[in-house]
């Protein structure tokens, strides 16, 4: 099968998954107990006003019709209006999602190169002191809860040494460098959380290949050790590494709720938590759908990356 058809197939599967997820999100909110109109108006409302609001919100129509309505809007980027403040959901979500992506990008820019480099070095000097220190320290950081890591960093780098702000409030009109500066502490917290996973997978994937005949061949050709690892083992270990990187990237975007709250960072995570407490369902649905789409998209990119990293598929006979 050619690369193009493989990629097209994955893309199709990704869309189907997203559709299924959208049904689940919509259905879950639908199953929540209580009547939305009743909730908005409070216990004191008369049945007439509740009925009027239901008609106004379109809640009297069957769920299937409302689902397709919602989905059709979502496809065009229209997620309806927030119940809490009557503003467009897309308008609220857009800048916050951009903030979350920015934080994830800063964290990824640190964590991916560092963890792959550490993984390669740990494989190169396996069983050495470096290998052990790298393993133990990354394990320690992944085992600590992220809010704890966040507070530790705040303690050392914002309170004891006031180098960075402890509150990462970014605004749209901030210059890029300042934005990065303000985002640095939460990004560092996230880096500490994801680095262990990626580093250990890189190390394991490379070490698994070291017994291969072609690695022995490279050594018997007199190639230096770093070349054996970086030129001969790493390209063949890419598939598992790409997968774990994608998984962690997705985590950086969808799993940041706690970190955003610790640093009062205006991202999607905070919005989601606020909306859940306010029972602002259109916003919750939109946040979930955006997270799901991000997750699926990243995994899709990983799949395509894995396909492209395989020379047998890239260069058919």
């Amino acid at each position, binding site marked *: 099968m050619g690369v193009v058809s493989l990629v097209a197939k994955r893309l199709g599967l990704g869309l189907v998954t997203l559709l299924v997820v959208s049904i689940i999100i919509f259905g879950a909110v639908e199953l929540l107990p209580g009547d939305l109109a009743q909730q908005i108006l409070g216990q004191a409302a008369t049945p007439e006003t509740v009925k009027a609001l239901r008609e106004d919100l379109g809640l009297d129509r069957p769920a299937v019709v409302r689902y397709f309505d919602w989905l059709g809007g979502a496809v065009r980027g229209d997620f309806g209006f927030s119940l809490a403040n009557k503003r467009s959901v897309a308008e609220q979500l857009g800048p916050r999602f951009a903030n979350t992506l920015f934080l994830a990008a800063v964290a990824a820019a640190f964590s991916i190169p560092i963890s792959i480099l550490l993984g390669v070095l740990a494989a190169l000097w396996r069983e050495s002191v470096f290998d052990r220190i790298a393993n133990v320290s990354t394990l320690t950081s992944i085992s600590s809860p992220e809010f704890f890591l966040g507070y530790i960093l705040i303690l050392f780098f914002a309170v004891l040494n006031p180098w960075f702000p402890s509150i990462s409030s970014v605004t749209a009109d901030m210059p890029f460098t300042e934005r990065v500066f303000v985002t640095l502490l939460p990004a560092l917290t996230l880096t500490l959380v994801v680095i262990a996973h990626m580093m250990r997978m890189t190390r394991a994937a490379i070490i698994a290949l070291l017994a291969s005949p072609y690695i022995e061949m*490279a050594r018997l*050709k007199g190639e230096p050790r770093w070349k054996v690892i970086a030129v*001969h083992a790493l390209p063949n270990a890419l598939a598992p590494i790409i997968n774990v990187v994608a998984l962690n990237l997705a985590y950086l975007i969808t799993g940041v709720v706690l970190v955003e709250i610790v640093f009062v960072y205006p991202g999607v995570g905070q919005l989601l938590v606020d909306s859940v407490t306010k029972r602002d369902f259109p916003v919750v649905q939109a946040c979930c759908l955006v997270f799901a789409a991000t997750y699926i998209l990243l995994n899709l990119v990983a799949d395509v990356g894995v396909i492209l990293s395989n*020379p047998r598929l890239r*260069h058919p006979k």
Partner: protein
Amino acid sequence: MARERGLLLKIRGLRIEGRADEKWFEIVHGVDLDLHRGEVMGLIGESGAGKSTIGLAAMGFTRDGCRISDGTIEFDGMELTSSPEEDLRMLRGARIAYVAQSAAASFNPAHKLIDQHTAAPVQHKIRTRRESEEDAMELYRRLRLPNPEEIGFRYPHQVSGGQLQRAMTAMAMSCRPDLIIFDEPTTALDVTTQIEVLAAIRDIVDQFDTAALYITHDLAVVAQMADRIKVLLRGDEVEEADTRSMLSSPQEEYTKSLWAVRSFRREQKPAVGAGETPVISVSGVSAAYGPVRVLDDVSFDIHRGRTVAVVGESGSGKSTAARCITGLLPPTAGEIRYHGEALPASFRNRTKDQLRQAQMIYQMADTALNPKKRIGEIIGRPVAFYSGRRGAELKKRVDELLDEIELEPSQYYHRLPSELSGGQKQRVGIARALAAEPSFIICDEVTSALDQLVAEGILRLLSRLQDELDLAYMFITHDLATVRSIADDVVVMKEGRVVEAGPKDEMFRPPHHEYTDLLLSSVPEMDPDWLDHLLEQRGVDNIGEAARK
């Protein structure tokens, strides 16, 4: 003549230890070896003889979990056992090169051949990248690879096995080393491809006057390649002599026994009477994997108490035919008849009794036996499944089967497969097939993973069981020596078709079909002049083409 040119490699009292279960134990027990410039020495022995370990040690290299515990390895005046790793690295690839058994596994799948070829000369600063590329094309041409200008720019998976093996030999030559270690370079190849590679290796070693250690378990191959032969057994030297005297008058008992292996031959049974119904009849069977057609109108019969050998190169459809017979791969056309009665195409639609009648024995006994089950369970399961025996009756039957395969029940019943030798595992595979009390057994390359002496034991066992139980065998193999020793009838396959079929005696007597002739003449013989004569006959330049015709 090589002798006057000085010693290149001098090994004295080499001891190598391997690590298992946290303990070190010796695998090479003090071997001496002298190799002169331009000389080719053959190292032969069964698996576990320490051939590869010694070959790698000649590069100052040991695999993970091995170490050189004693002895000296002197290469051109340099002591390797005490040299720092960095000095050894400068030597490897540049002055001593290595050609591995499986080129397909030893070329890095992620890089083009040319990138891998030029790595060593550029690394060792012997040639620039451009010079090395040009040199590669020259070497490819000398090794008679097709499209020498272009083939280097392909990835390993885009090149056939025989071509890869030659490309690897070219790669070993890239720095014009003084010594090349050939570690079973043709073992994974078909006989017809093997010839091309052997001829190419011999020519290029000759042309550049390279010394070589040629490691193999195949006596006939080493006879073509080596000036001198050293025989090894379990890490000890048995004897060493120049090739001709070693072949004509081996001194040691073990060497003589190696030479004698090929003597086992059973009587061919008389032709089948007309009108007798075959046990299995394959008629007009075609099969495909997806859109790829792999069998095309294949027909042959297998009669009671007879062995039909199905021979051909890899990819000729031998194993696919077996999969069709067992119902694992339903054919797209034709049918399989058992005692004249058509069997359902898929095994799912066959009755228990129909399933019972056809059993299989596999090539790799290692992977065909469940490593977590004890021998008694492995054999007991099909007994219980097909005969319904339970408890003491089941145990009794398993003991009988173990007796059949000459393994003492009290000793082996409770063992795990990992506690058995390769030959014993294959015997358990046979017992498992017998447990179903079949009338027909498919043996798929059952001896090709085994050493010659062990393989002969398996062939004798199969032959005895056939006489006792009147079994019909379909014997899939690419080894014509095995065919000679055990077959009654032979079916020759090529590219999914039967090109020739008939009784063994006729098949081995000319005139043959052109392809059968090619197969037969490609099997190396013990005569050290065999390759020369063959190349003369075929014309040196068209060996490759002859194989492809």
